[in-house]
């Protein structure tokens, strides 16, 4: 950062200890799945949309690890490309919601007054609606497809982060170090974003691991209902929905992508547990 002539005895930055097994396993699972999704164009054995009617409804085999669907598309390739869509969209909407919510919540908590009252009422209203119903309403307005789902989930998702950040800000605001930023004549923006935010973002980040799983399932659910990813594009929800009619004679079409979805969710929530645990063990030091 600086080129000061002072020789500095560099100290180790405090690292999150990776000695808890939840974090290790979670990171491994999520890392492997994300890597596979990112590298899909390189490692997918077939074109995901390549129809081969002669190979329809083949069970898992060496040439088709996950089997094929009712028009003979390779399910491994479709799952990989589907994951790509799902992970990208879920990460985007979860962290877009987090950013909006945390910024709105901290600002509301810091200033209080009418802005806080409005933010409080609006976020309470959003939270009191059933999540899926509200997303469906937004999709109905914007139109089916990933865009509608993404907008819907962000519109609903920011509210919880705003509440979380606001309540943390209310206690943070009274902390002497926040008073000190005032006494030093720092701007409100500096006080909020440089000093308060780094101190309260952690709880939102931990909650976001739960949120990622929830959003993944909502996205898959909406695609399953035909409101998310539109044919012929693949995502896990639409693949599972497509296999539904063949569940009795071709179980693999719905089951294997479903298992991948479960694995991903498990991995993310393990990371969340691991991070919380790490935080606690660091506190008890």
């Amino acid at each position, binding site marked *: 950062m600086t080129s000061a002539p002072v020789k500095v005895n560099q100290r180790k930055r405090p690292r999150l200890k990776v000695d808890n097994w939840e974090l290790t396993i979670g990171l491994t699972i999520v890392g492997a799945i994300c890597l596979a999704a990112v590298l899909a164009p390189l490692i997918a054995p077939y074109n995901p949309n390549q129809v081969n009617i002669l190979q329809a409804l083949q069970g898992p085999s060496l040439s088709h690890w996950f089997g094929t669907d009712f028009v003979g598309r390779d399910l491994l390739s479709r799952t990989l490309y589907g994951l790509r869509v799902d992970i990208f969209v879920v990460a985007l909407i979860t962290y877009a919601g987090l950013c909006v919510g945390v910024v709105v919540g901290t600002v509301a908590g810091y200033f209080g007054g009418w802005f806080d009252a409005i933010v409080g009422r609006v976020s309470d209203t959003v939270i009191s609606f059933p999540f899926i119903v509200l997303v469906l309403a937004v999709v109905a307005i914007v139109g089916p497809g990933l865009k509608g789902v993404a907008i819907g989930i962000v519109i609903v998702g920011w509210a919880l982060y705003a509440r979380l950040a606001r309540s943390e800000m209310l206690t943070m605001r009274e902390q002497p170090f926040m008073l000190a930023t005032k006494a030093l004549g720092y701007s409100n923006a500096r006080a909020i974003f440089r000093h308060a935010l*780094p101190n309260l973002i952690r709880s939102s980040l931990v909650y976001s691991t739960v949120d990622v799983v929830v959003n993944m399932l909502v996205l898959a659910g909406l695609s399953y209902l035909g409101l998310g990813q539109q044919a012929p594009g693949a995502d896990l929800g639409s693949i599972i929905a497509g296999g539904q009619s063949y569940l009795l004679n071709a179980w693999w079409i719905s089951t294997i992508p479903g298992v991948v979805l479960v694995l991903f969710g498990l991995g993310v929530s393990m990371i969340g547990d691991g991070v919380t645990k790490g935080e606690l063990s660091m506190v008890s030091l």
Partner: protein
Amino acid sequence: MSATPLLRIEKLRVSFGKDDSVVAVSDVSLEIGAGETLGLVGESGSGKSLSCRSVIRMTPPGGQMSASEINFDGKDVLSFNKRQLREHRAHNVGMIFQDPFSCLDPTKRVGEQISETLRVNAGLTSARAREQALKLLADVDIDQPERRYLGFPHEMSGGMRQRVMIAIAVASKPKLLVADEPTTALDVTTQAQILGLLQRLREETGMSVLLVSHDFGVIAQVCDRVAVMYGGYVVEVGAVADVCARPQHPYTRALLSSIPSLESAGNRVRRVGIPGQPPNLGEIIAGCPFVRRCSFVQESCSTMDVTLETVGPGHQSACPVMANRFVAVGPSKLPAPSSSADEASEETP
């Protein structure tokens, strides 16, 4: 005292609650000359902290502040707009708070917190700010400043954190340093070091200091003049030596006589405390705020106006009954700095 004081506060009033029913500070007037150290002493809830925060117009939420004048270095603080007020806080007044454990941002390295002040308030480049911050760390007697620069607040002791706070407060070379009970949370040895540091910095920079404390010993050690506060009023002002030797207000007298001294150590003399409780600020006490606990109370006390009357050169007291009736109490000695446990525990806000 110079002719034009650096800071003059006239008739400061801070109140809380609906229709300002709780008056925490009433008609406080203070003056600090350039290069002077003024002590503000009093028990919990006597309005010390509120009075000194008014210098940068920082009133806690729900508080109402008014004054007929707050003049800093020829400028009218009361008329400042938001921008000017921020400038005033950034450049003119440095502030040290009571609790060094929570006054530093726990997620930032202490060096960065010092250089942040230098960058934002003094406009230095980050390289220059870093250099200057290291110099400041050395200035406040922190060992191995290069190593400590990268440390986090939780890795430091209370005394060290208070030194860092002082470094931040004096970073932009303020004309006035307001120290709000800087040593209350520290043990006695550290307290002596911090007070020594404050004195040294004052001598080196020529800044004025407003030192708030509930410990007369601390005040006597460091200050030129002292203002004694009780129940939101300033009841006595004067040179420290003068006030200690010839206290003119019964409260000051009681406060001084409740301090244990080395001479009385073997005598098994019972320390006389002040009977009763400090006034509840919610109720309005007519006349002198000390009327219920005073051992010299007279009929006229509950009808009088609390106004400071001159009782000696540069020495004013708000007790017309006792004015000039007290003579030197025994050999004129300044109390030694003390920090007994009960005094410290009394200070929980």
